[in-house]
Structures are given as C-alpha cells and as structure tokens.
C-alpha cells in the first residue's frame, strides 16, 4: 500500500539556485501530473509536494525555501532519508493546443505535465514567470517540449520584465489556445482567471492548501462553499468546480483550522 509511510534515501539533489532544489528518490510511484506525495522529514514535519518528474523507478520533487520545513529541506544531503507516501489527489486531464501558465515553484507540477503532453504528441505553449531568474526551474525542458516558451521575471533577470498576466491575452490569441493549465501562487491564478473567464476557454488549476492527512479525512483542506477536499477531489480543479469555490484568492486555513486572509 503506497499510503503507508516508508522512508527513502535521497539519491540526487539538483540545486537550481539559492533556496530552490529538486530531490530525487528511487521509488516506483504510479502517479500523473498534478498528483502529490506527502513528504516527511523525521523530527520536523510532513508536507504535501507535487511530483515534478517521474520515471519507471524514481520520482522527483522540487522545493523552494519558504517556511521552516522547506528551509530545513535545503540542508539535506544525498543519503538522508525522507518519508514519501502517495500519490494522492487527482491529476490534470490531457488536451491539445494548450497553454501552461506556471508561477514560481508552481512550475514543478507543470514540468511533469509538459513531459506527459509531449509524450502524447499534444501541442502546447508555455508561459512561465518567477520573481527572479534562479526560481525559473526546468526552463530547458519547457523550451524543448513547447511549441513556444514565454518567460517573465519580476526583476527582468530573464525573459520579459513583468508578470505572466501581462501578455496572456495576446498569447492566447496568437497561439490559438484551446485549453489552459495553471499552477502557482493563488493570487496569480485569480488574475489569470479574471482574464480568461470571459473567453470561455476551459481550464484546470492546481491548488494548494494546508493538510494534515492527505487521504480525505481530516477536513483541513476542504474548500468553501462546495465542501470538496483539495487532497481527494483536487488538487487539480476545472473551471466548473472552481465556480463554487468562494474562498479562492481570499482565505485559506492554518493548522488550527482558522481562516487566514494572507496569500
């Protein structure tokens, strides 16, 4: 049973830049893009992470130093053991003529999606943004697999200076986009959603919420007002499912279950 906790040694670490790393484990994982694993750092905590790459007998997760857990992850060495259980949740669905919009570490689940789409010979364009150059991960893969790859950074250190939303509508028109995938900060998605909702282009967004169990029982990641669980019915939601999510971009819940306004 893949839900049972087991620890695996880190086989390889890739440093993308300061505070952004990918960790590689030898473990068979029957997963698809959008699904996640719960990662246990013994003595510290356990958190959900999207799978960023996958092979027959290995998987990779990508981590940005943000809170105490991900910051502690930065000190790990090859051979250190982490618990990896899963996969959990629902994956992206496959569509042709798609646009992949990724923000920051949200690029991670899209990396696996890009690989899957490319293996299925489905065409797509990528639009990737981050605060700065070293947070743009897997760019070479996206450039290799996408029909076109547009890049923005807040500080202009790579690609165009600005946000992914700035050229979004013109890219959709120019590239004749028929489906949109997004993953990244919720505030980014809220802006994307405002722009694309009037276009009637179907989309899927990969959401994040605090979780205790990952297996659909604790209730911490349940969304208002639809009552769906990010860990089971999500983390990938389509435009219809998101219509009933009133908390989008507004609040999420902390470990106590209190509503927190900040994103």
């Amino acid at each position: 049973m893949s839900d049972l906790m087991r620890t695996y040694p880190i086989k390889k670490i890739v440093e993308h830049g300061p505070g952004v790393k990918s960790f590689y484990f030898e473990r068979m994982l029957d997963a698809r893009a959008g699904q996640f694993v719960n990662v246990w750092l013994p003595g510290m905590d356990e958190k959900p992470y999207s799978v960023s790459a996958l092979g027959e007998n290995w998987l990779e997760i990508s981590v940005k130093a943000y809170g105490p857990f991900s910051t502690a992850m930065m000190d790990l060495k090859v051979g250190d053991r982490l618990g990896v259980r899963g996969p959990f949740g629902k994956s992206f669905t496959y569509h042709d003529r798609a646009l992949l919009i990724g923000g920051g570490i949200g690029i991670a689940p899209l990396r696996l999606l890009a690989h899957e789409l490319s293996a299925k010979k489905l065409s797509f364009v990528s639009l990737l943004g981050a605060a700065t150059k070293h947070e743009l991960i897997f760019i070479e893969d996206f450039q290799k697999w996408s029909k076109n790859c547009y890049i923005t950074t807040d500080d202009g250190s790579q690609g165009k200076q600005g946000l992914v939303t700035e050229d979004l509508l013109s890219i959709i028109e120019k590239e004749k986009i028929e489906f949109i995938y997004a993953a990244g900060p919720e505030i980014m998605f809220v802006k994307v959603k405002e722009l694309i909702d009037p276009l009637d282009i179907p989309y899927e967004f990969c959401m994040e919420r605090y979780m205790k169990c990952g297996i659909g029982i604790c209730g911490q990641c349940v969304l208002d007002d639809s009552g769906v669980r990010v860990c089971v019915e999500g983390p990938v939601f389509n435009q219809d499912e998101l219509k009933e999510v009133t908390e989008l971009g507004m609040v999420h819940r902390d470990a106590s279950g209190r509503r927190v306004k900040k994103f």
Partner: protein
Amino acid sequence: MNSVRFLNLELKNPTVLASGILGLTASSMWRVVEVGGAGAVTTKSFNKDWRSGHKNPSILPFRHGLLNAVGLSNPGIDEMVKEIGKFKQRASAPIFASIFGRTIDEFAEVTQRTVEAEPDLLEVNVSCPNVHSEFGQPFGDSLSDTAKVTEIVKKHAGSIPVSIKLGPHGPGIARLAKVCEENGADAITAINTVGPGMLIDIDVRKPILSNKTGGVSGPAILPIAVKSVYEVYRQVKIPIIGTGGVTQPEDAVQLILAGASLIGIGTAVYYQGIKVFEKIARGIEAYLQKYGFTSLDEIRGLAHE
C-alpha cells in the same frame, strides 16, 4: 423504513459522521450529508481557544486502520459556533457539537457558548487518548471526573441533549456509562479511538507520529467497539451512538445488535469514500428486509436475548 428517531431528533438514516473526520467547516459537513448521505454529522472536537494540535505526521494508515494524534486541533469556539450556524442554515440533517475542555470550568464555559449555536446534541469528548502530555489523564479515565464533567455540561446545556463519548479504557466503559446516566447524560457515544498505539519507521528507527503515540481507529478496533457497546447496553437505559471500526453494513448491524441506536462512521471515509454513509444505510436496510424486520427498533440489542 430507514429513518430513525433518536431522543427528540429525526434522522433520515442511522449513520452519523463521527467526530474528527471532515467536521471542521459547515461546507465540509454539508457535503457529507448531501453527497455522502449521512443521517447526521458531528463537528470536530473544539474547546475555548484555537489550537494547532500536533505537528505532522499526525494521521497514518497502517494495514488494518489508522493511527492518529491530531492533538485536538481546532479553530476555537468562536469560529466553530459560526460554522454550526452556517450548517444549520444550509443542511437539513441534525448536527452534533463535539466539545472538550482542559478543566471542568472550561467544559462549563464551552457548553454555555455552544448552546447559543443550538446544535441538536452536545457530544462531550472526555476520552481523547492523544493529549496526555499536555492535559494529563483524560477525564474519561476516572469515574469521579466523568461524573463531574457530565453534571456540569448537563447543568448548562438547557434543553439540548448530551451524549458522553467514552473510550474502552480506564475503570471500564460500562461503569463509566452508568455514572454518566446517573448524572443526567441523555446518551453515550462508544467508543473513541483505542490505545494509544505507535508505529515505527524501521529505516529511520523512530516513531513516525510527531506525538509518537496516537489513537487507533478503523477495522482493527471493530471487535472492541462491539464489545463496548454490548456492555454499555446492559448497564444503562439511555441510547448509544455506536462508533468504532465500521466500514461495512455488516459491521454496523453488529453494533445495532449489541445495542447501538445510531452508528458513527469516520475512518471508513478513507476506505470507502464519502458515499460510505449511504452505502451502509442501504446495507442495514437490506439486512432488515432479508430477515423480515420492519424497523431498527426490532433488532437493537437482539444479541442480548
């Protein structure tokens, strides 16, 4: 046929969402009723002030159930009272408020505040096995403490019925149930999670739960729940919410034959999905039909005859 009366309440079927599962928000509990088919819901246990609970890992599957030490995390009474209110506006099923306190005084205060939200029943959690290091021995491990908590909650509950949630530990669940009944409890919820237990990672060689130990739920504890309900039923006249290890209709029927009036379902959501309530309710009905019974009342406690 499946609709049941319990105390002064009418439920569309005897299944109840057990406390601690999907009971944090009105939206979540609404979906358990609307999509899952539960006859009633129980909130996550809450007290006066918010608590983050234990760090993760806090909930772990093992081969025969779940081990959990969530540590009574909850957003505090202000938020929970709002969620109970929202649920009542949106859903038609009864809602049970699960409350706890660190002290007898806190039980009194939480009861007073919770009653304002008008839940259909107060379930009093005196048997959480996961907060020893912080709270000391659970109230439910002592006959006199259980009596005191029951008395104080009843004093402040007004017309809202009170069920005391007991574990299979301490001085014996039948004696505890008797004390609850003597002090005015309207019902007994039996049982809480069992243990505590522990799981160790054999490669890291450390306990996996951040709290090290946690309560056991799921299929592993069904026989303990059946026996506990059986013993409580012999000892008291007040009705029993039988909870523990139910994942199939046959499990629920065992608890009813032992003496349960309602069936709490929690961990089964992990095994069977959210529609487990409807599945088990239908299965109970099929059992009644198979043997020509016309109501649950006819089979309740039948294993005692």
